């Protein structure tokens, strides 16, 4: 399998937080959801991939090269942050001109088409855009320089569901090309629930797993049992639990419980919450 991003033994230390060591390989051609609570280190990882911060150790390559040694690589990477970092006084058409002077692969026509599609007027100023519009502008820029990899860092948080849905459509359209890859960090999991191919789960600076979403959902099951019944279950099988006054809710590994047990399909959110909160 070919990889768009390869992170090897990445470590970044802060005073009160350490990220890593992280080993993460992002396969080419898929949509990868990078999930975890706020402060788990998602943004730090993405910034390290983009060369915005210096890791303490480890090696990160994108399409086989390191971004910091090779800025031209950024032509191939579309980046959307949770905010648009452009001066408020700039008009959208000036943003286009600026980008055409910065990206060697810039496609003015495509950018204009996206502005049109998103109903963004070229004469509007950046400061007059709503949050949703800023996100759409950011996405328009990211998609107008022939990027093969899109990195979205909490880009959809704080947007209303209709806009999130629109953005999801654009991402899926982007993925129609087999060599295109999307890495999206988010704590809104409903967006990723259906469409993500892989889920990478970060918790307290450590990568707990990176798995195919389908496998993940098939691997685990949810069930409600009484306190007595829980004792009959192999403790190894219980991944997370939520005890309440009248019994237990469990997230279990399907392979380790009897087949007769009635299990329901967990959502990615269930898996995330049970693993984080369910001290076994």
């Amino acid at each position: 399998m070919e990889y768009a991003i390869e992170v090897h033994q990445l470590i970044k230390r802060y005073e009160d937080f350490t990220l890593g060591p992280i080993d993460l390989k992002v396969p080419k051609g898929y949509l990868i959801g990078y999930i975890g609570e706020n402060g788990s280190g998602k943004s730090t990882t993405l910034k390290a991939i983009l060369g915005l911060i210096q890791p303490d150790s480890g090696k990160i390559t994108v399409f086989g090269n390191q971004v910091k040694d090779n800025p031209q690589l950024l032509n191939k990477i579309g980046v959307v942050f949770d905010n648009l970092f452009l001066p408020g006084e700039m008009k959208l058409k000036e943003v286009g001109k600026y980008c055409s002077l910065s990206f060697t692969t810039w496609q003015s026509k495509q950018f204009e088409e996206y502005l049109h599609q998103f109903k963004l007027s070229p004469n509007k100023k950046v400061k007059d855009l709503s949050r949703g519009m800023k996100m759409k502008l950011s996405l328009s820029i990211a998609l107008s320089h022939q990027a093969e990899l899109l990195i979205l860092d909490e880009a959809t948080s704080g947007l209303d569901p209709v806009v999130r849905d629109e953005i999801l459509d654009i991402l899926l359209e982007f993925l129609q090309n087999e060599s295109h890859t999307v890495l999206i960090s988010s704590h809104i999991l409903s967006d990723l629930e259906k469409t993500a191919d892989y889920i990478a789960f970060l918790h307290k600076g450590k990568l707990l797993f990176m798995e195919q979403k389908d496998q993940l959902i098939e691997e685990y099951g949810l069930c409600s049992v009484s306190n007595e019944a829980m004792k009959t279950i192999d403790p190894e099988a219980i991944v997370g639990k939520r005890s309440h006054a009248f019994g237990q809710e469990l997230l279990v590994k399907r392979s380790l419980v009897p087949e007769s047990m009635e299990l329901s399909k967990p959502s990615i959110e269930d898996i995330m919450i049970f693993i984080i909160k369910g001290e076994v």
Partner: protein
Amino acid sequence: MIGIFYKDIVSSKLSYFLTVIISLVIIFYAISQHQTIFIPFLFVYLPIILTGVAFTVEEQSSNIKFILTTPISHTTYVKSKYIFTLCFSFLEYISSLVVFKDQFGNLQTPSLIGALVFSLPIIITSIQIPCILKFGAEKGRIIMVATYFGLFALSNLLSDKLEVIISKLQNIGMSYAYLVTAGICLSILMIMAISIKIGTLIVQYKEY
């Protein structure tokens, strides 16, 4: 590099427009009052102000985070911040030639004075830019104010000693004047190169 310079200009058009208007007013005033000596000195202040404005606007929008995701190397980004200074230094040199030509009746001495005035803004921005990159535009502005005072004191000193300096400059053989001019320019450009190198290292190791 052109891209960043373009962005710096369009992102604070009003400030630059006002600066140009005020400068023109000062120039016309200076000419009408036969105080043309002010003109080269005006060009010393301008790049420092404009560079400061560019950094402030950039910081307000955390623009650097966007810039670093475009295919621009850190060095190119830092270099783009010296464009203002270089343009104005050049203007300064030319205006020195024009202003002092009549006074001396030759080009050699004005060329020397020009070279000295040319070096001022470059030295100042070479200090200013790494400071702003390191400490941010806010603290960088304090350094800017300090350099203003320094400049002010220097220009006072210069105007007092102008006669002496000029006579000393004239003592340098006329034939060496262009050579000395070139020498000054070269060493100044070297200072700028070192400053760019330091600036690049600062950007590289800073967290965005």
